[in-house]
């Protein structure tokens, strides 16, 4: 069975984006870039899963020269990976290897989990994360906690019907003050 992980950077009060899609608070230092490059694993990338908003933001960046210049390994890994985007409104997707999923999010995810293929990583996409976490379909979380708080923003787990219990599996501190926390989700 394919595993589903969540990779996100968060403010220390749990937001993955501020008002107006603001993610300018995240520190993209050298260590963070190396970690992201290792995680993207361009030689054998995970499949990626998104909601439409995150997908469109990333699709407009990573295939471009700006994306390749910012982090070549991440760009290569993301461009090469199989991509799934949940959207009922998206008619077509220009980013290579993208499948648009129009069915029920939970059912489509269960089907993907049971089909052959690499493990799946969800980036951004708070509404997808909270729905799938609520149905116990997320296996692990990789969270980069920035040393910043925002008064308002979008919480990664907003709308989850109940709580999820976690187990800390690994942690690391970057020189920038970003704290990386890895959790597995208790079933």
């Amino acid at each position, binding site marked *: 069975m394919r595993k589903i992980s969540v990779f996100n950077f968060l*403010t*220390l*009060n*749990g*937001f993955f984006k*501020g008002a107006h899609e603001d993610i300018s*608070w995240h520190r993209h230092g050298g260590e963070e870039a190396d970690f992201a490059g290792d995680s993207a694993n361009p030689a054998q990338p995970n499949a990626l899963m998104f909601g439409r908003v995150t997908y469109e933001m990333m699709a407009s960046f990573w295939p471009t020269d700006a994306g390749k210049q910012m982090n070549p390994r991440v760009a290569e890994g993301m461009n090469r990976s199989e991509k799934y985007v949940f959207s009922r409104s998206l008619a077509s997707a220009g980013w290579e290897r993208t499948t648009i999923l129009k069915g029920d999010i939970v059912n489509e995810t269960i089907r993907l989990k049971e089909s052959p293929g690499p493990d799946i990583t969800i980036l951004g996409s708070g509404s997808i994360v*909270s729905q799938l*976490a*609520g149905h116990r379909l997320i296996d692990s*979380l990789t*969270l980069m*906690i920035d*040393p*910043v*708080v*925002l*008064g*308002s923003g979008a*919480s*990664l*787990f*907003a*709308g*989850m*019907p*109940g*709580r*999820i*219990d*976690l*187990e*800390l599996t690994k*942690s690391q*501190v970057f020189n920038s*003050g970003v*704290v990386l*926390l890895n*959790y597995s989700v208790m079933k």
Partner: protein
Amino acid sequence: MRKIKLQVQLSIDGFMADQQGNTDWMIWNYGPDWTWDKELRQYHTDLVGTTDCLFLSRQIVEEGFIPHWRKMANDTSNPQSGFARHLDNAHKVVFSKTLTTDDDIPGGWENVEVSQWDIRQQIFHLKQQEGGDILVYGGASFLSSLIQGGFIDEFHLLINPVALGKGLPIFNRLPGRKALHLLSTKTYDCGVTLMKYEAVREAMAISQAR
């Protein structure tokens, strides 16, 4: 100079309690059985040992904060009695516009005062005096207002291994973005992660932005 420190248990998504105010998801819910590992207990005991003054909300006083920790302090067979003794001995300042010392409060008024000033003046007054650090205890509303006012010098965030989805936040009254400086972080065997931050003063914020 004396520091004002906030130590608070949070979920990974930044809530100090669920929507109904429940905290049963915390590894240690401040109950009689201290379900933290030894190392985390030691950190907590050391932190409380640096204080000789507490800021309390009216609500937490009326809920019985003072007699609870006095009882713990007097129960010397309980490992919590060590830090509870410090809490009991500390001078306590209650912030309330309605409470007076003519009112009854659980535990009584010995070593407890109602602040005669607004919080900014109270802090200015206390920081002029020699003494230990100040710890703040209260509900989400009280803590939010202290954070909003920029009164906290050090944040000790104890992140429990749980995501709640919704609950009571403490940073929600900030108008925009606030950068903090990470002092240290430590993970404990019981599953709690301590992330310790200090407030960034203006000059420092500018140099970091460059």
